[in-house]
């Protein structure tokens, strides 16, 4: 294990997501970092900008049958099916540890209906140690025939409003990339009060096994993540950052500090590290180290100078 020395001069990496101040712009992406504890002996958690925990629902969910993951070219498909212990057990079993890690904890929530999002918010907002809520709107709206909340501006706004109304915490809405115009959804959730948007969630994909003539995932379709999707993520971050005035958190295929800084140039205020955690469990901390080095080397007053600094003439 490498040890990290303290640096001098201490560079300014702070960024703000709504009222939430992060010491640096590097978060971990929901579903790829467990409940942080799994990484505790690999990553100095306190050095991260924050951690986003696995998506939590009102009731425990068993998730999908196996196989749930499959590798694709420079990416992977997952159909975990949002397996989680449910909000009550999350609060009693996972939060005590998370309270002690000295880094902001952002809780990712998901529901099948507006009511579920409401109840989740009510429960989480009073829990000590929860720094912000990230709302996953890529889930199907059961009442509206299973269309994802995130694919319709009105539904996305409705979820956002109900979460905002029930919490004082900063609310980040996590956008689905499987839409015609992601800026339109971003705009709708901004108008509904979101403090920030994060994007992208996974692209819907599929893999087929020629030998068995069956889908490779039990769930047939799954979410594509990893380096393969980075160009799509970067484009969407760029588009959304030009359409909204709230902070944008960039996600998708980020493995290195260079990747992260590219997202910041495109307009991201912060980033999340997802699939890269599987390939290099120290990826998130190494991104922090790399950004630190960059800010020192380039003599920036603050990493914030990078946000949206892309030169397009």
């Amino acid at each position, binding site marked *: 294990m490498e040890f990290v020395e303290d640096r001098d001069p201490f560079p300014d990496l702070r960024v703000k997501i709504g009222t939430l101040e992060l010491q640096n712009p590097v978060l971990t992406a929901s579903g790829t970092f467990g409940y942080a504890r799994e*990484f505790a002996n690999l990553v100095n958690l306190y050095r991260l900008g924050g951690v986003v925990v696995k998506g939590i629902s009102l009731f425990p969910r068993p998730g999908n049958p196996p196989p749930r993951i499959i590798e694709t070219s420079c990416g992977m498909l997952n159909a975990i099916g949002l397996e989680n212990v449910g909000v009550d057990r999350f609060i009693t079993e996972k939060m005590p540890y998370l309270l002690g890690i000295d880094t902001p904890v952002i809780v990712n929530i998901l529901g099948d209906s507006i009511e579920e999002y409401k109840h989740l918010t009510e429960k989480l907002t009073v829990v000590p140690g929860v720094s912000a809520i990230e709302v996953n709107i890529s889930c199907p709206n059961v009442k509206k025939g299973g269309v994802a909340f995130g694919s319709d501006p009105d539904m996305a706004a409705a979820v956002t409003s109900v979460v905002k109304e029930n919490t004082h915490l900063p609310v980040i809405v996590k956008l689905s990339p499987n839409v015609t115009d992601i800026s339109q959804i971003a705009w709708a959730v901004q108008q509904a009060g979101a403090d920030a948007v994060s994007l992208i969630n996974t692209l819907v994909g599929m893999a087929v096994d020629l030998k068995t003539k069956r889908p490779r995932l039990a769930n047939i379709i799954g979410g594509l993540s*990893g380096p393969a999707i980075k160009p799509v993520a970067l484009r969407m971050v760029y588009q959304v950052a030009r359409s909204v005035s709230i902070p944008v958190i960039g996600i998708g295929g980020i493995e290195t500090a260079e990747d992260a800084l590219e997202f910041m140039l495109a307009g991201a205020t912060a980033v999340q590290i997802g699939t890269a*955690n599987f390939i290099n469990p120290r990826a998130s901390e190494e991104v922090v180290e790399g950004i630190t080095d960059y800010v020192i080397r380039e003599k920036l007053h603050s990493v914030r100078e990078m946000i949206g600094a892309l030169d397009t003439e």
Partner: protein
Amino acid sequence: MSQYQENATIIRFEQLTDTNIRLTLQTEEIAAAAKPGQFVMIRTGKSKDPLLRRPFSIHQTSSSGRIQILFKVTGRGTALLAHCKEGETLSVFGPLGHGFHIDPAKAACLIGGGMGVAPMLFLAKRICQMKKDTDTDLIILGGRNRSEIEPLLADFHFLDIGVMVATDDGSYGRHGLVTDVMKTISLPDNCTVYTCGPHLMMKEVFRQCRKKKIECQVSVESVMACGMGACLGCNMVAKNSRYVHVCSDGPVFNAEDLEWNL
């Protein structure tokens, strides 16, 4: 449980058969921490394709800070590993998972088939360290043919446990499956069977154990992304249709706890 990510130098590359390879890797911290039945996740190359690490059982560890893995080329990742050279480095992450539970008071029967032989050596060595008397213990190893199994035996023969071998084609040891051999022997009542190998083999081993009311520990496989409980991708159906996660709840399970559709 501590895990380490090490840049491991390849100390030795042994091409055992056309498809089977044994790698000796310098991984100080993993070697020191590893327990029998645990595994490591290895990056098969420097490129982003293939993207994910591949899981391999720890075949044995040495006090000089080395581990061995034993693998078969089955796809792109293992094909890449089959091209690596001594002196190069590989990113190795581990040790991972829950290994075998050894009760020194009980007799042990180790049954490994194919690449399932891999974890059995480490397990057998540890059993020999923990137990004074291994007279009632037994190892049954199976493979397709002589060339697959013979190169592995030297290490087992150093140990004080009897080894029986079965090959599919009869070219070495008994002709047949390890489960055929298992039928011919009478296991002591107070015995634990440890097994790793193809699913159908382990199923039959468990079937025989259950009949005889003998404890059976199995090391199972699943597709994995993280190997450490973070992605929830490696689930498997356990008893009562519940899911377990192979990397964090396993890879070694009490066979009773899994669903075998017997």
